[in-house]
């Protein structure tokens, strides 16, 4: 490695793209794909990384992300802020998150409507929460805190779930609408999550989408799921991100894009990751849907962006 390419402290990477990336499809970024990506020159799309993977002090992860960021817009996707949890946010973690936002100037920043930490234990999964007035207040407080610290709005992702809490008093879509209205955050609509949850809980994915505040959606996720069975031997879908996007999810995606215009769309593939050409082709399929649409969706939360 040429010493001249290395920097002393955190490098501020200047924005090279307009943050408005409405017409683009992107993919999850894997280090093993970097040589193939760079060899292909500047791609039209964007790349998404899990924030936690870049919270180390230095080394190859940051070199790879700098190399990618030089020519491509980035989506920074937080996985373990535990926004949906009952306890205060981890301030140290939030500070690390802010440093990444400052350093890499992502076009999109997102987190999950979920929790992963209870007391001191970190469970490394996106766990479901009860939907009540009290948890709504708490989630809003957490999002206010995140947005104040990073000084920009985030996109909040709808979860995939396998169980429901008995004490829930409102629907997920009402809960999410309430959070977006109160905090001004945008939404990351994971259409695979909608399909997985709809199957698992026996509701209509289209009705969920009708009730979802689509005007606030700033990004879409598409991913593959796997099949298991529940206690009654009926299908239980698992949000596994380890295979191509399923046909019914593509159909729902086209419905949403026809209704909303072209929204930046990401192919999420985190496990059993294929070679770059396969992932790239999956993004091209999403890009083709976006290209058929002649309007780019206005970002509802854009007024809040600096």
């Amino acid at each position, binding site marked *: 490695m040429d010493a001249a390419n290395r920097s002393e402290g955190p490098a501020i990477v200047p924005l090279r793209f307009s943050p408005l990336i409405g017409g683009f499809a992107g993919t999850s970024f894997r280090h093993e794909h970097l040589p193939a990506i760079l060899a292909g020159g500047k791609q039209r799309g964007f790349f998404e990384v899990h924030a936690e993977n870049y919270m180390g002090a230095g*080394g190859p992860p940051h070199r790879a992300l700098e190399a990618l960021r030089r020519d491509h817009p980035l989506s920074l996707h937080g996985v373990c802020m535990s926004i949906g949890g009952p306890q205060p946010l981890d301030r140290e973690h939030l500070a690390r998150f802010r440093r990444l936002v400052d350093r890499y100037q992502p076009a999109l920043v997102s987190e999950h409507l979920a929790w992963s930490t209870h007391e001191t234990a970190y469970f490394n999964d996106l766990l479901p929460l009860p939907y009540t007035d009290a948890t709504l207040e708490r989630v809003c407080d957490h999002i206010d805190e995140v947005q104040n610290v990073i000084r920009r709005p985030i996109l909040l992702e709808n979860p995939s779930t396998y169980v429901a809490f008995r004490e829930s008093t409102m629907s997920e879509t009402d809960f999410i609408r309430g959070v977006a209205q109160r905090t001004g955050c945008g939404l990351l609509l994971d259409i695979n999550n909608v399909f997985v949850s709809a199957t698992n809980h026996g509701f209509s994915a289209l009705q969920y989408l009708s009730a979802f505040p689509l005007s606030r959606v700033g990004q879409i996720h598409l991913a593959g799921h796997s099949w298991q069975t*529940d206690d009654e031997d009926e299908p239980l879908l698992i949000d596994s991100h380890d295979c191509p996007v399923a046909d019914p999810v593509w159909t729902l995606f086209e419905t949403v894009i026809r209704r909303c215009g072209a929204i930046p769309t990401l192919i999420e593939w985190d496990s059993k990751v294929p070679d770059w050409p396969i992932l790239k082709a999956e993004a091209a399929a999403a890009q083709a849907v976006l290209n058929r649409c002649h309007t780019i969706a206005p970002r509802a939360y854009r007024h809040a962006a600096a």
Partner: protein
Amino acid sequence: MPLLKQTSQSAYAAFAAGLIDPSRDTPSVVAGPNGKAVAKRYNVYRNNVTVSLIEALAAIYPAVQRITGVDFFRAMARSYIRATPPTSPLLFDYGREFPAFIEQYEHARPMPWLADTARIERAWLDVYHAADADPLSSDTLAAARPERMADLVFTAHPATRVVRSPFSVVTIFAVNRGADRAGRIDPSTPEDALITRPHLDVAVRHLPPGGAAFLTSLIAGHTLGEAAASALADFLSFDIASGIAGMIEAGAFVAVAIGDNDDH
């Protein structure tokens, strides 16, 4: 800020309690839709948590997994996770106590070198993620006045670690991280490792006798004279000149200065 109602707090606690404890019943705070049962549904979360943490450990300790075999490793990792769940969302920091756990793990007793192999792997990942810095060049060191050599103190590179072992763990590590099929190794030769990352690539070196005492002393901030004495006490024939050349070549330090007991 409104406090969460007691019910919600206990709902989270009930949900969390069974995630890594298989002896717990499915929590009664959750349900399936339309009166459906919830056991297999809740087990999806249990499985996600345990399997993802096992995979995190397998990613940190691939040589250990290769030595033990996958089934052995997963059983050992599962016991570790139940005893020591992560306390940070940064999974590359997880498993610091895993080498000590391996040392106590009954089924690993026939492999006494396994824990030190794990220590090298843990050090490897710490070095991989450590802060970047330009290593000390031999030119900078050559500029030091010869009569003050013994008073020099060095600043370790953030990505420098030393692991000492009474077993052949550098060889065991290298063979089990390589692509080749592992052959028989005599595990009983003591081997010390120096792990560095002067630029992009992590390097694991087998230190000569006395080398670990020498570097450990320098990393602790002792003078070159004191470090040389430590190295000679450890190994009488320690070659100081090649010890210095080796540490520069490995990029183990970033700066050098005349020590605090400087008297002019």
